[in-house]
């Protein structure tokens, strides 16, 4: 039995191969708990992606599981025959039916899962025996999918599925299910740091070895799949099946997880919609280190708006630039400094932004600073820190800015409102004029701005320190590993109660912060 000191961390396309918000969070967690042994299982594309994070000593093992590598399993001779084949076919049919014909979800209520759980259990057993991939590549499976798709009464029948659709969909499902075969040490706590495919090994371990299962969500995985699928070049039946798979898998993750820890209250909406029991959802906010993001000191002499992040359409910088143009008319000296890299694929977006700035006649006041080494200085460079995104989880850029003692003007998306509280202004997304008016009011009132900045730092130190965030998980690991469960009160003040004793232990361990 585990004592909460052995954790299997499951990631998909993030830590330790890719830089970004979730990876930063994982790194903080792993480094923050030097006394816990971490087994990191990373789902990756080809399995050959380089490790871009330096793994600390307590990560005792790292495994990259490729979704797109060669077919896993026992190869020839793994084909199912006779009774085993009939049993698999029946389970797979249930599986397909549960993806395509989900019982209607009632508003706010949890949809019932039509056999998905049982079917996935069956498939997990096969996957562990190394026989699932071969079974899913057989002709029977293809014919079965064609038959299920064209059943009378199914919407997919009207979309006229072709053999090619069946082949594509079956292939995608086969690749998606590969993580089912990954084993998790039975004495560890399985911690999936996103919903979806990363939960598959945890689900298999839960079904077969009763391993405790913790699910953390930053973005809403299902929501991102819905939005991401629009650019895929596949016909409707494939889309219906794959998104059905993600939906059912998401729900199964929510149902099976012993605890779900979203990084903001806002995510709860989707989680409860997806069938998560409210009493098993516990918000653990992201945290920053107030020492790494110290008080920014005096404001710049020229009134400046600072923004930090990736130059990406999801950040809706058009709105920020329009708002800036509006403010320039009132405050001609005002500058806008954009800190952050342009990710691959977003170069065109940056060009569009530059054109927009020129069109509005404010290009001279906008500077693109690129990636910066000292992020804290980027926040300190602004009189006010801005956020114009149309979608966010619990943005690090806001709590980091707050830690630097800067007040913020941000759009009301995701967990932003929870982060900011009453220490900054929150405006509706995609409304440049409202954003401009709110910011102008702050820029004109030096006293209020300074007071809000002070309150911002106080709020971070009280509620969103890295320390509290890591402590929250340390406690949860122990709890899931069978240690006595402490009562959970409404609200999030419980994270504070735990701070002290662990802090000492950490200091003794010589942790990194």
């Amino acid at each position, binding site marked *: 039995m585990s004592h909460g000191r052995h954790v299997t961390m499951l990631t998909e*396309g*993030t830590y330790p191969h*890719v830089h*970004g918000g*979730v990876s930063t969070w994982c790194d903080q967690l792993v480094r923050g708990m030097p006394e816990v042994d971490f087994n990191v299982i990373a*789902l990756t*594309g*080809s*399995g050959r992606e380089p490790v871009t994070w*330096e793994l*600390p*000593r307590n990560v*005792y093992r790292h495994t*990259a599981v*490729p*979704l797109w590598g*060669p077919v896993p399993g026992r190869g020839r001779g793994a084909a199912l025959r006779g009774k085993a084949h009939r049993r698999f076919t029946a389970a797979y049919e249930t599986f397909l039916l549960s993806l395509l014909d989900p019982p209607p979800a009632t508003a706010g209520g949890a949809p019932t899962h039509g056999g998905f759980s049982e079917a996935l259990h069956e498939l997990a057993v096969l996957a562990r025996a190394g026989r699932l991939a071969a079974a899913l*590549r057989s*002709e029977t499976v*293809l*014919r079965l999918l*064609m038959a299920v798709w064209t059943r009378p009464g199914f919407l997919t029948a009207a979309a006229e*599925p*072709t*053999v*090619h659709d*069946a*082949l594509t969909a079956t292939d995608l499902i086969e690749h998606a299910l590969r993580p089912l075969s*990954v*084993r998790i040490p039975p004495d560890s706590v399985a911690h999936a*740091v*996103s919903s*979806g*495919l990363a939960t598959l090994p945890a689900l298999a371990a839960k079904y077969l070895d009763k391993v405790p299962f913790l699910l953390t*969500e*930053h973005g809403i995985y*299902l*929501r991102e*799949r*819905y*939005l*991401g699928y*629009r*650019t895929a070049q*596949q*016909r*409707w039946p494939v889309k219906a099946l794959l998104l*059905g798979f993600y*939906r059912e898998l998401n729900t199964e993750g929510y149902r099976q997880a012993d605890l779900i820890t979203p990084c903001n209250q806002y995510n709860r*909406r989707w989680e409860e*919609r997806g069938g998560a029991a409210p009493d098993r959802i516990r918000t653990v906010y992201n945290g920053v280190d107030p020492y790494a993001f110290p008080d920014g000191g005096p404001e710049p002499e020229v009134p400046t708006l600072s923004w930090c992040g*990736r130059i*990406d*359409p999801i950040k*809706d910088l058009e709105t920020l630039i329009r708002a800036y143009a509006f403010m320039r008319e009132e405050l001609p000296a005002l500058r806008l400094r954009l800190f952050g890299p342009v990710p691959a*694929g*977003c170069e065109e*977006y940056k060009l569009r932004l530059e054109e927009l700035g020129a069109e509005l006649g404010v290009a001279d006041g906008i500077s693109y600073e690129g990636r910066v080494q000292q992020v804290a200085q980027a926040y300190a460079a602004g009189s006010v820190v801005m956020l114009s995104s149309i979608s966010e989880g619990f943005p690090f850029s806001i709590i980091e800015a707050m830690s630097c003692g800067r007040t913020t003007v941000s*759009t009301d998306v995701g967990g932003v409102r929870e982060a900011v509280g009453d220490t900054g202004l929150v405006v509706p997304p*995609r409304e440049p004029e409202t954003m401009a008016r709110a910011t102008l009011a702050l820029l004109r009132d030096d006293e209020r701005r300074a007071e809000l900045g002070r309150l911002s730092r106080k709020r971070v130190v009280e509620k969103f320190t890295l320390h509290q965030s890591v402590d929250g998980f340390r406690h949860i690991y122990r709890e899931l590993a069978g240690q006595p469960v402490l009562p959970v009160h409404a609200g999030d003040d419980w994270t504070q109660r735990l701070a002290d004793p662990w802090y000492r232990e950490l200091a003794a361990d010589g942790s990194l912060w």
Partner: protein
Amino acid sequence: MSGSLWLRVPGGDTLPAIPRPRRGGPGDPGRAGDPMDQLAERLDGLIAAAVHPDEIAAVLESDGMTDEHIRLTYGRHDSFGLAEELYARVPRAFPEPEHVPDPWKVSLAACLLRGVVFALPGLAYVLGAPLLEGPKDRLGLPAGTLTLLAGALIGWVWDQTLSHRAYTWLGLGDRAAAGRTLLVGAPAGALLGIAAALTVPGGPPFSYAFAAGQALYVGAATVLLVLGRERVLLAALGPMAAGALLALFTDLPVPVRVGLLVASLLAACALAVRELPVARGVRAGLRRIRGWSGHRPGEGPVRWRMLRGAEEEYGPRGPRIGDSVPYGMFGLGTGLLVLYAALGEVLAGGPAEAVAAPSAVALTLSMGPAEWLLHRFRSGSLAGLRAARSPRRFWLRMLGTLGRCLAAYLVVLLALGLAGTLLWPGAPGLTGIRASTLLLLGAVMWTGLLLQSFGAVRPAAVVCASAALAQSLALLLGVGQPRLVQLVVAAAAAVVLGALVCLLLGRATAHR
């Protein structure tokens, strides 16, 4: 925030293009009408194509619509409620993807170029012929023929295997690993080819030098062909080919012949070396040797390196040797069959004049069109998959495509055979039985390549190797009339391969 591996969309496309409200849209007091109607109208396409109400909720939220706004403007509780109503209001539609890619589109010129590059080295024998002069061997073949054949055949088999390994790495997106494979494999193959040639006694001295050059060339050509440098290889063959053409009309002095042969060989080798990571390979090799003797650098802070792969191995996995060997077997089988087509009658004791060189040349040259037609078949069968609503319908369509492509290949082959027979000085006439053998052999080669391109190389290798074995046995035991044996063996192999194609490729799952 969480990165999906599935649908890796570049940052620019993370958001669906959502039609923006027009000026004076919802929320504008100047415009009358139900805001729900306006919203449904604005998002009509997105709502109609949705697979679930939650998809619409995701779109609404990504559009920046908050629950507060939804309550105020639309009087629904939240985005889910609003989405459900929109989903019910707009009938489903199934838009087709905008552009359907055809990954099998390939330029005919590139394939023809490959065919030429396969056949062109044959001219080296023309250029080198005076150097190989000597008494005819006991079969009545020109001196050194068997030496050269042994080297060529072994080199060919090795390089088929090597190509498969390198192509597999390229398919996995690991060009560096492909380079390493070739860096080790091509020189090894060249050495093997030289060794094979040396084991055949009795050739004139120059034939061994020629065989060594040939082995080196095969290695270099494999590197360049796998890495897609056909044009470069063609340029390297230039001096030799020009010399050979010239030699048909005038008598070139020996030093010029040798010079041209060596120039082409050196050019091919130099160009191949340029494509390979030689320096890095040498460094890695030295490091490995030093690693054997020196201390193990495992004391760093990163423990996972050592523990990786303790129970399960998910790390980089290249082609298994067992997967590559059938490619070599297939190469051996087809190589022998082509050889027998050209020399079978001579080997069986016939007159030396019966060398049916045009058949072998036609088969080699036809590899270009064959490759192109393989792509046409895959393209056609993909179109069949996309059009068919049932596996049976697909099977019928596949058979149609198969028939068309095979017929086209055989027509090309026959034309090449006829042209070769007419142009080749002193070639035996293309009689009915020779033409049938040629066409049947062509069918065996093409269907074998087809199976190989679908990954079913094992049955293809078994059939071709068995056919070659049967013919060798018949030859050794002196059973039957050689031409008849060839015809029967080729026909049997063609029938078996044809049946295998219909059986294996009729399954839609073979076409993934």
